[in-house]
């Protein structure tokens, strides 16, 4: 879900006013996925802690972490932080992160993710919402999108209940694969979450396949 305008700024203000630590979980949304390095940048919000993983080195070697504000770091300047991990900052994972961040920057991948979202995925998905009756809602930014599939356009009853799949969802995923597309699906949603460096032509090719597969879903929607 994209927070509505002003929402995260309001959360930041409440947290600051009441001494609450604001943690931005950017594990999935970070490192270019939203068309900026971190999704909180869309709201101009700086959290106290920011968690990351996944895109930090694209998972070539497992790596995650917490970015820490000076105030919170200072809490542990004379007092030991009670925790750590045997493989914290593993050299193979760290070397992969260095190469990933430098390459993403050199090849303009964050900007590419923003442009693909704005000029290719966004328009295509809004088109799906208009002409596929199985599409209850589309939302997203950058290369981070969701298509909500429904049985009924008016009630927006999902084609699979929250927390599980359905035979129709399984069929749609199978149809995508048979046509040469590997989708990401969860419950009643199909996500469009390609790499940040996907080309416009590749993105369009995948969207054309999805367009055809959604025709099948339409046959199950009233």
């Amino acid at each position, binding site marked *: 879900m994209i927070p509505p305008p002003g929402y995260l700024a309001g959360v930041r203000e409440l947290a600051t006013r009441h001494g609450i630590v604001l943690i931005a979980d950017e594990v999935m949304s970070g490192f270019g996925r939203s068309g900026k390095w971190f999704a909180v940048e869309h709201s101009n919000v700086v959290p106290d802690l920011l968690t990351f993983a996944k895109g930090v080195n694209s998972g070539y070697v497992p790596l995650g972490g917490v970015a820490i504000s000076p105030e919170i770091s200072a809490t542990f300047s004379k007092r030991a932080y009670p925790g750590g991990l045997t493989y914290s900052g593993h050299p193979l994972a760290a070397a992969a992160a260095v190469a990933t961040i430098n390459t993403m920057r050199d090849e303009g991948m964050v900007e590419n993710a923003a442009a693909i979202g704005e000029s290719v995925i966004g328009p295509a998905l809004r088109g799906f919402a208009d002409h596929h009756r199985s599409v209850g809602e589309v939302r997203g930014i950058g290369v981070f999108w969701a298509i909500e599939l429904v049985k009924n356009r008016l009630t927006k009853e999902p084609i699979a209940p929250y927390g599980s799949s359905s035979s129709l969802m399984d069929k749609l995923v199978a149809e995508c694969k048979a046509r040469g597309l590997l989708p990401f699906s969860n419950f009643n949603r199909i996500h469009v979450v390609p*790499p940040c460096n996907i080309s416009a032509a590749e993105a369009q090719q995948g969207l054309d396949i999805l367009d055809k597969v959604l025709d099948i879903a339409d046959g199950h929607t009233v």
Partner: protein
Amino acid sequence: MTSPAAEALPLSEASLRGAGHAYELDRRHVFHGWAAQDLLTPMTITAAQGSYVWDGGGNRLLDFSSQLVNTNIGHQHPHVVQAIQDQAAKLCTIAPEYVNDARSEAARLIAGVTPGDLNKILFTNGGADAVEHAVRMARLHTGRHKILSAFRSYHGGSFTGRHSTLLPRGRNPTVRWSISSS
């Protein structure tokens, strides 16, 4: 930007046979997370390049999943593969208490791209344990223990993450926040 051409990956008879063998061993010995073991027919992936993967039958598929939404740089980017190979030849592993140049530089670069004054990095193995540590740090910093997280959010599959996540367990759907003090 372009992905390397599909033709760059010849799929031999041997690789197709290898995929069949890998599938048999998987079904015999690999226990898959988030799954009922007997109801699975997992896809075998034998190769990947840029925005594409190849399945056990030699078919090319466009990866619109980035796997679990993680391959932001695409598959097998040569710069990253080279960096891992170079680091493996130089120093595969060293305990976190020692200074290591790759770790120092990664921390500097991450601090550089994260917003504002977030300048120190605690490294973990993945996202779930990053959330565990962020929550632990926040609790020690404030001396308070409650966590608020958004309705139907997901913050990882480990203990704290699951408790900061409104998982589908038939809880009251009108609850707007998940409050955890565990």
